[in-house]
Structure formats: C-alpha cells, structure tokens
C-alpha cells in the first residue's frame, strides 16, 4: 500500500532524505576523486543509513533493501576492507538513482517497486571484503552479524548503546572528553559506529549506534517506544559492571571464527536474525532477559565511555572483544548525538513557501498603502506627516528586500548536481572532462533555482556531447586531452548571468546554415543572409539538431528549443557564441526573482495592461502614411523593415457582450486616434502592438489568476498597480498564437 505523502512524518522523512540524497550525489563523485577520504566515506555511509532508518520506520521495504546493500558496501569501504572501483561507483550511483526514483514514487503516493534485481545482485556481489582484507575479523559489522541469533549477543550492542545515550542526555560527559573518547576508539577501528551516529539525536543516536554494532539493521527495527523501555531496563542493571568481564563475555558469543562465518550469512538468514532481534527487543520481559544476559557488554560500553584509555589494552586482550568494543562505540555515538544536539541549537526553520508568498503579498499591499500615503503627503503638505511617511518608505523598502531574501537560495543547489552529470557523461562517451564552477554562492529566487535545473542539465550535456571532442582528437588538435566545461554564475544588476563555456570544437556557421536549410528551418536565401551570430542561435530553432547520430545523451532534436522556451518562461534570455576549434559559450540571463516582474504599463481602451519588459524593444508613435497593408495585415516600416502591427483593442473588444469586432483593415476612426506602437520580440520575429497610451515602466508583483481563469491564452497573470487597480499581464507569445490572425 502506498503511504500518504501528506502525512507529517512522511513529509519530514521526504524533506530530510531529499537533502541527504542531494548531498550524496556530490559526495559520491568527489569520493571517486579521493577514494581514501574517510570523512566522505563516513558521511556517505551515514546518508544511506539515515534513509534506511527512516524507510524502515515507514515500512518501505523496497527502499530499505537498496539502502541496506549500499550502506554495507560503504561500511566495508570505510573500514578499508574494500577498494573503490569505477564499476562499484557505477553501481552505487545507479542505486542512488533507484533510491531517488523511489522517492519520486513516494511523493506521487504510488507504491514502490523493488529495485531491479540486477542492481541488487551487483550490489550484493560488491558487498564482501576484497581478498586482501579478509584476515582477522575486525569490523564491527562482521563481529555483530556473527552473533547469529542468540538473543544475548543481539541485545549486547543495543544495550551498550542504551546507557551511553542516557548518560549523554543527562550531560555527564563534556564534549571535549567525548572527543577524546572518540579518538581513542577510532584507534581501534571501531569508532566509526560512533561517528555514524554522531549527528543523530539522543535516542536515534543510540539506535544508530546499536545498529552499527548489530550488523546495521537491528536498531531500525525497534521503535522508539520499545527502545525507551529497553533503555530503562538496561540502565540500572548494566551500567556499572567491570571492564574486564566485557571481553570475556563477548568472546563467548563471537570468536574470530564465528565472525568469519558471519560473512557467509545469506540474506534470508540475516532477515531471520533481524526478526529475532526485533522480537526479543519488544516486550519488557524480553528486554529484561536480554539485559540479564548481557549486562557485561553494556557495562563495557559505559565504562569504555568513561575510561577510554584503559579500555584499549583490555580490548585487545580478548579474541572476541569486538562486541564490547562496538558497544563502547555505539554508546559514544549516543552520547555525542545528545551532546551535539544540546549545544548546537537550531538556527534555521523550515517554512512553507506558501507562507513566504503570503508575506510577500502583504508586503506588496503595504507598499501600495505607502504609495497612497506618499500621494497624500503631496496634497496635505504637512512636514511632520511627510517625515513619518518618509520613514515608512524606508522601512517598507527594507522589509520588501528582507522578505525577498528569504526566498533566495544559492545556485549551488543546482550546480551541485553537475559533477555527477559530467562524470556519467564522461564515462558514457569515453571523454575526459573537467568541470570548473564559479559563483556557486550567487543567490537567486528559489523557484528560479528549481526551474533552471533542467535547462542547465541539458546545456551541460550538449556541451560535453556535442562540444567537447574525444581525447585523441583533442590531442591531435594540440589541445589538452581533458576538456573543460566551465559553469559560472554572477549577479549583474537585477539579473543573474549564467555562462556555460567549453573549450571544444566550436560550431561552424556554414555547417549550421546547411543543416538549417536541409531540415527546412530556413530557405537557402535567408540562411545565406544570416550573420554568424544568428547562425549559432539557429540551434534554438525547433527541429534543429546538429548531431547526425542520435545518442541517448542528447540530440533528440527537441532539446535546445525546449531549453530556450523554459528560459523565456522565466523571463530570461539565452544567447550563444562560438569560435570554430576554440569552443562555445552560452550565456543565460534570468531575473533575480520571479516574484517581481519589470513591465511596461500601457493603456488600451481605458484599461491598464502590463507587457513584460523582457520582450519589449522600443516604443514609437504610429504615424499615418507610413503604414502599408501586406497580406491583409497592416504593417509599418521600421528602419526599412516591414513590421506587422497587432491591435490589442480588438482582443479586448471580444470581452464584453456589446463587442463589435471592427473590420480587419484599419478604419478611418482608428487612424484618427493617436496611437503608440510597442515593439516586441517573439522568437526571431519583431512585431508591433498598437496601444492607446504608454504609461511607463513599473515593477509589478505577479498575482496568479484563480482556478477558473487559469491558463487563459494571452494572460500571464494579473497585478495590482500603484493606485490599487488591477492590470492584466499579457503573455505575448500565447496571445499571438491564439488571437494573432484576428488582432
């Protein structure tokens, strides 16, 4: 059964996991560069582990499976029992994709599908130590999974974690001491369990620690309540037993031989073990029995926490010391979690963007009230009043800016996914690619960040696929084998400028002309008349694809015009420049925010309309005598080019019941009026809109139209002007598309 994505717990899980997944993508790619980086390995391990924990809690078994396998691989990696390989990375990245896909399904309230069998198989095959790392079973997970199903040993790690967690909660140990403890444990190679849990809160931390000890799953199967009970049971009995007995007792259950055997446990068996663990942890009685059997181990945990230095010789004395050691580490994890939690404090809150929109709305209203007051100030002319209104103006502007900033996000969120994209592409296409990014800190509107992601991915793909040459070709051309793709963002006034530059083969304008003619985008004559820069922009024309062969990476021929459309929808522009043999550069300009739109206010038939400034080019008076009728449409000559004119009035005439559509041609009455023409650019075309009056530039806050009016052709929304009245924002491309022939 699908779970409800609207549920609060599920929501939290989704948000948190999405953040982790985003980070994982980056971390995995950097890990390939630095496979020995323990911090990275640990944090990847933690990431999968945390997701698995949440998924287990929500009963998403399919998700647990994948995460579990992946997490185990990283457990081996971080303990140095396995070496990173590109094949392994491929499978892990694929697993990440599968996990991402599952989250999509959860968000759509769909049932999960199990991960592809092939992937699980591949992960499983990776999930054993490399040969040279077999030896003595020293890993925490080995040790614990060797504890096969005896209730005693299963409870041991979790029991050990328990008092640790509680002590941490009561704040017995300071952070410094704890750091020292962690260091000491790390020396033994088991501290990872602790650091894995370090970020979690007290109970979760203890749980995570316990599970790290117990072969990485037991803790997840125990609910918080059960765990609390277990804690209570164990705390009194277990926490003060002596250290020496810990290794001895632990050795009973898990000698090195057992530990080695543990590697061969099949999944089924392991599941069974998990079930048993779960069962034994459930009731208070079960908990107590476990506690009775294992006080020693938990004692080991807490005393390890207190006397880390003395723990080491003891531990190394016993053959099966790992159980106790794990306990210590797990306890440490619990402690650290609690300590860290208490000290760090919350510096940020999650806020629904709808609430921010509300605030934004209200601020907009405040600005209107301020404007009215400012008008009154002029009329009344009282000095004290004008002083107060002046103050109000400052405060409202600051408020507006602050609210705007709450919606801003660094573009790093988008850039962060590109190392992965580039890596996959480079491997697929057998090219050597280096990605250089700059300006990741540039802030822009949250909606824009999201909306830019897909177009940018597409452009980056194009750069790598079409732009960069294969290494051999580069070498023979006297270039570095490794191609560079440079992705940069910077703020330019009220715009953000994004550039994607490659040092690849560049584009050949003549070839572009040829293709355009062949594909029927242009006729030969107009193609010949294009200058080079116009040729480069041909690739944004619909149906234009330069690659002879269609690859699965890019080149389906739908790409670039879709990119251009999505950028236009953001009121942005895209421009391309290229130099044959040297590379191509694509520049995207988007406004800082989507919430505020610079528009040109015009009056048509007594009503105000806003034309987005991004398409407006110029304004001039319509002069009679300079117009001609071409193909039934009135046109005007502008700099020796004929420009078609559209009459917005005719669009409005259709509104009311009394609408009498005037004759197509310009009547005498029309000619007598003083009209102005606003020139706008749609794609490659320039057209003129005839309006009664141009009022001026105004930055407006876009207000969406309600559900009933949503998606009306020609309208992008509405806005409230300085005097409180409503102006409609015209969506020029869709207006022309819908009404073009009748305007």
């Amino acid at each position, binding site marked *: 059964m699908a779970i409800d994505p609207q549920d609060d717990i599920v929501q939290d899980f989704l948000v948190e996991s999405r953040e982790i997944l985003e980070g994982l993508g980056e971390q995995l790619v950097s890990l390939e560069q630095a496979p020995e980086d323990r911090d990275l390995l640990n944090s990847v391990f933690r990431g999968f582990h945390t997701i698995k924990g949440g998924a287990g809690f929500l009963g998403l078994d399919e998700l647990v499976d994948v995460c579990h396998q992946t997490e185990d691989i990283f457990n081996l990696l971080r303990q140095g029992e396995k070496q990173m390989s590109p094949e392994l990375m491929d499978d892990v990245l694929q697993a990440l994709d599968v996990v991402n896909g599952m989250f999509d399904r959860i968000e759509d309230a769909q049932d999960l599908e199990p991960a592809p069998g092939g992937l699980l198989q591949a992960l499983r095959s990776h999930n054993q130590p490399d040969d040279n790392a077999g030896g003595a079973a020293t890993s925490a997970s080995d040790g614990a999974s060797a504890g096969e199903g005896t209730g005693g040993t299963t409870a041991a790690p979790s029991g050990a974690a328990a008092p640790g967690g509680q002590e941490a909660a009561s704040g017995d140990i300071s952070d410094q001491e704890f750091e020292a403890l962690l260091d000491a444990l790390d020396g033994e190679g088991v501290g990872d369990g602790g650091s894995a849990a370090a970020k979690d809160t007290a109970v979760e931390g203890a749980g995570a620690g316990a599970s790290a000890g117990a072969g990485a799953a037991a803790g997840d199967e125990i609910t918080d309540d059960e765990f609390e009970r277990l804690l209570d049971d164990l705390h009194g009995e277990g926490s003060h037993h002596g250290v020496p007995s810990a290794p001895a007792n632990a050795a009973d259950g898990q000698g090195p031989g057992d530990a080695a055997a543990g590697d061969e446990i099949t999944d089924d068996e392991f599941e069974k073990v998990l079930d048993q663990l779960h069962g034994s942890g459930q009731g208070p009685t079960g908990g107590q029995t476990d506690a009775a059997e294992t006080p020693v181990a938990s004692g080991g945990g807490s005393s390890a926490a207190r006397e880390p230095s003395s723990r080491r010789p003891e531990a190394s004395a016993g053959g099966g010391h790992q159980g106790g050691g794990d306990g210590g580490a797990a306890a440490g994890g619990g402690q650290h979690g609690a300590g860290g939690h208490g000290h760090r404090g919350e510096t940020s809150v999650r806020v629904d963007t709808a609430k921010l929109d509300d605030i934004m709305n209200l601020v907009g*209203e405040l600005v209107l009230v301020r404007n009215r007051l400012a008008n009154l100030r002029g009329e009344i002319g009282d000095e004290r009043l004008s002083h107060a209104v002046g103050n109000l103006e400052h405060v409202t502007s600051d408020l507006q800016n602050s609210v705007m900033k709450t919606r801003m996000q660094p573009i790093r969120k988008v850039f962060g996914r590109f190392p992965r994209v580039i890596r996959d592409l480079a491997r697929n296409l057998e090219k050597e690619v280096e990605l250089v990014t700059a300006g990741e800190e540039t802030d822009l509107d949250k909606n824009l960040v999201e909306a830019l992601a897909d177009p940018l991915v597409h452009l980056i793909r194009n750069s790598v696929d079409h732009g960069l040459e294969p290494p051999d070709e580069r070498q023979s051309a006297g270039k570095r084998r490794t191609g560079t793709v440079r992705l940069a963002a910077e703020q330019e006034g009220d715009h953000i400028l994004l550039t994607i530059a490659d040092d690849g083969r560049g584009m050949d304008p003549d070839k572009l002309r040829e293709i355009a003619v062949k594909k029927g985008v242009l006729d030969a004559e107009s193609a010949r008349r294009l200058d080079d820069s116009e040729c480069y922009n041909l690739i944004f024309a619909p149906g234009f694809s330069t690659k002879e062969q269609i690859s699965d990476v890019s080149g389906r021929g739908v790409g670039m015009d879709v990119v251009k459309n999505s950028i236009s929808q953001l009121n942005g522009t895209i421009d391309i420049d290229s130099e044959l043999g040297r590379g191509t550069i694509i520049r995207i300009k988007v406004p800082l925010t989507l919430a505020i739109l610079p528009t040109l206010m015009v009056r048509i038939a007594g*009503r105000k309309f806003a034309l987005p400034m991004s398409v407006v080019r110029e304004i001039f008076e319509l002069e009679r005598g300079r117009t001609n009728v071409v193909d039934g449409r009135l046109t005007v000559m502008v700099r020796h080019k004929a420009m078609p004119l559209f009459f917005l009035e005719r*669009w409005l005439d259709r*509104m009311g019941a009394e609408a009498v559509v005037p004759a197509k041609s310009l009547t005498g009455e029309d000619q007598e009026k003083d009209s102005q023409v606003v020139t706008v650019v749609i794609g490659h075309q320039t057209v003129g809109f005839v309006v009664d009056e141009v009022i001026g530039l105004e930055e407006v806050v876009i207000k969406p*139209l309600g*559900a009933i009016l949503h998606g*009306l052709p020609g309208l992008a929304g509405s806005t409230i002007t300085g005097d409180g*009245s409503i102006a*409609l924002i015209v969506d020029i491309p869709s207006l022309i598309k819908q009404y073009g022939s009748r305007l």
Partner: protein
Amino acid sequence: MSEQLHAQTEAEGAVSQWVTFTLDDETYGIGVMQVQEVLPLSEIAPVPGAPPYVLGIINLRGNVVTVIDTRMRFGLRPKEPEDSDRIVVMEAGNQVAGILVDSVAEVTYVRDGEIDTAPNVGNDDASHYIYGVVSRDDDLLILVDVNRLLSADEWEEVAEL
C-alpha cells in the same frame, strides 16, 4: 438558545447556518462556513478571453479574486450594477471566488428537517447548483451548493449545453 437548539436538533436533525442574499425577488442561502466576507461593489476588471460567466477580477487586499456572474448562472436577466450590489467572497475546495448579488440580508438557522429537495423541472441546469429549498411562511429560501457553483468542470459542462 443553545439548549433550545439542542432540543430542536434532537427533534428535527442538525441545525446549519446560512448567509442569505437576494437576486431579483428570490432569496438564496449559502453555507456560512464557506463565506469569507462580503464586499461592497468595487471595480471589477474584465478579463479578455474569460468564459462568459466570469465578470472579471477584483483586488482583495492584494489577492486577485475572480467574480462570477450569478445572474447568468441562475438564468436571470442581466442588470446594470448598482451601489447596493455586493460581492460575496466564498471559499470552496482550494479556491476563492466572489459572486455578485443584489444584496446580502442575514444569517439564518435552518434545521435539516426543513430542507426539501429542489423541484427539478426538466433539463434545468441551474438546479445542479441547488442544494435544497426551505419554505417558511410565504418565503422560499433557495440553498446553493457552493462547491458546485465554483467547480470549473461543472461550469464547462454548462457552457457546452
């Protein structure tokens, strides 16, 4: 009062509150929980290309609200706007919309037992939006189903008729 209501509840089912408004000579009611506010007639900006039952949009403290022509919906003859006209802003589902009415009268209590089904005369599509009628003395109160009134699908169906 509440005890009295309670007693009535026992006798004739639950009691609901309705905001009544008039159009021509008829009195209509909409559920009080769905009424957000009542506004004096302000400038309604027409929207080119909008369906005919949409009068236009108004500025409600920074939010744009669509105003529906209730007269057209209920099959009444159109009339010039007057100062006494009111816009009732309603909420249904996730959307907010206004209806233009002649006047808003009062909030009245209606017991479930009082509500009769609307007389369904042939293929009168207006009856889609009528939840029921309440007859009191000589007056008839027509209860309107706001959810249906605002649902775009219903409107589209009507437009096709």
